[in-house]
C-alpha cells in the first residue's frame, strides 16, 4: 500500500504556491468574516459597560487587534525575510512584500483608534504614551520598508535589501520599545490603557476573537496579494502565460 507523501518543499516554487494560495485564501476570508461577526456581536451586545470608561472603552475591540497585528506582522515579515536571505528563495521575499502594506495599515489604524480613545479619556488627540509612540515608530519602520522597496528597480535586490532592513528593524524593536517606555515614565506621561479597571472575561474574549479575526484577514489578504506579486514577477514564464490566458 502506497502512502501519499506531501512534498512540502514543492510549494516554495512560486508556480506551485500560486495555485495553493488560490485555493487557501477563500477559507481564511470566510473564517475572518465569521470571526469578525462573532467578535462584533460580543463587542457590542455581550461585553458590559466599563465602570470608568463607560461605553468608550469599546474602541479596544479594534485598537488592540490592530496594534497586536501590526507588531506580529512585522515579526512574520522579518521571519520571511530571514528565511529568504538564508535559503535564497524567491517566494519568501514576495511574502514579506505581501505582508508589509497590511502591517503598515494596521499600525496606522492603531494610531488613529488610539487617538480616538485618548481624546475622550485624556482630553488630547495625541498623548506621548509609550505604546502609542512605539507604534508610531513601528509605522516609520514599515514606511521605510515600503519606501526602500519602491526605490529599487530590480525586484531581487529590493527583496534582499528590504530583508536586511526588516531584520535590523526587528532586532531594534525591543530596544526602541524599552527606550521609549523609559522615556515616557521619566517624563510622567499618560497611559492609554484599561489599567485600573478590571477586564471582564467577556471583554477579553471579545478582544481575542477580534485579534483572531484580524489575523485570518491578514493571511487571506496576504495570500491574494502574493498571487498578484507572483504573476508580476514571473510574467516571462510559460506557466503564467497559460494561467492568465
Amino acid at each position, binding site marked *: 500500500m502506497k502512502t501519499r507523501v506531501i512534498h512540502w518543499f514543492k510549494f516554495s516554487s512560486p508556480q506551485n504556491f500560486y495555485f495553493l494560495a488560490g485555493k487557501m485564501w477563500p477559507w481564511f476570508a470566510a473564517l475572518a468574516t465569521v470571526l469578525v461577526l462573532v467578535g462584533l456581536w460580543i463587542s*457590542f*451586545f455581550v461585553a*458590559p*459597560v466599563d465602570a470608568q470608561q*463607560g*461605553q*468608550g472603552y*469599546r*474602541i479596544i475591540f*479594534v*485598537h488592540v487587534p*490592530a496594534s497586536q497585528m501590526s507588531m506580529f506582522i512585522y515579526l512574520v515579515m522579518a521571519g520571511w525575510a530571514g528565511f529568504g536571505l538564508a535559503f535564497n528563495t524567491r517566494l519568501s521575499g514576495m511574502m514579506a512584500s505581501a505582508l508589509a*502594506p*497590511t502591517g503598515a*495599515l494596521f499600525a*496606522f*489604524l492603531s494610531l*488613529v*483608534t488610539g487617538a*480616538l*480613545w485618548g*481624546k*475622550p479619556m485624556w482630553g488630547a488627540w495625541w498623548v506621548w504614551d509609550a505604546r502609542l509612540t512605539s507604534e508610531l515608530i513601528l509605522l516609520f519602520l514599515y514606511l521605510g520598508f515600503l519606501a526602500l522597496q519602491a526605490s529599487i528597480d530590480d525586484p531581487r535586490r529590493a527583496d534582499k535589501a528590504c530583508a536586511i532592513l526588516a531584520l535590523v528593524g526587528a532586532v531594534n524593536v525591543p530596544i526602541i520599545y524599552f527606550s521609549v517606555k523609559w522615556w515616557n515614565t521619566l517624563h510622567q506621561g499618560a497611559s492609554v490603557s484599561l489599567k485600573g479597571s478590571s477586564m471582564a472575561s467577556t471583554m477579553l474574549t471579545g478582544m481575542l476573537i477580534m485579534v483572531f479575526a484580524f489575523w485570518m*484577514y491578514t493571511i487571506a*489578504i496576504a495570500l*491574494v*496579494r502574493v*498571487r*498578484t506579486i507572483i*504573476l*508580476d514577477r514571473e*510574467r516571462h514564464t510559460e506557466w*503564467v*502565460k497559460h494561467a*492568465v*490566458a
Partner: protein
Amino acid sequence: MQWLSVEDFFYMGGYAFYVWGSFGITALVVVAEIWQVRAKRREILRNLLNDNDSQQN
C-alpha cells in the same frame, strides 16, 4: 441585551463619535485595502493579457 433602545446603541453613552469613528475607519481601511488588492490584480492581469496578445500577433 444591555441597550435600552436603538438610539441608545447609536449614542454609545456619549462616545458615539469616538467609538463609531474607530470602527468606521477600521471598516474603511479594510474595504479600501481589499479594493486596492483586487484593483492591482486586475491591472496586472490586464497587462499580462496585453503582453500575450501582442506576442501572438
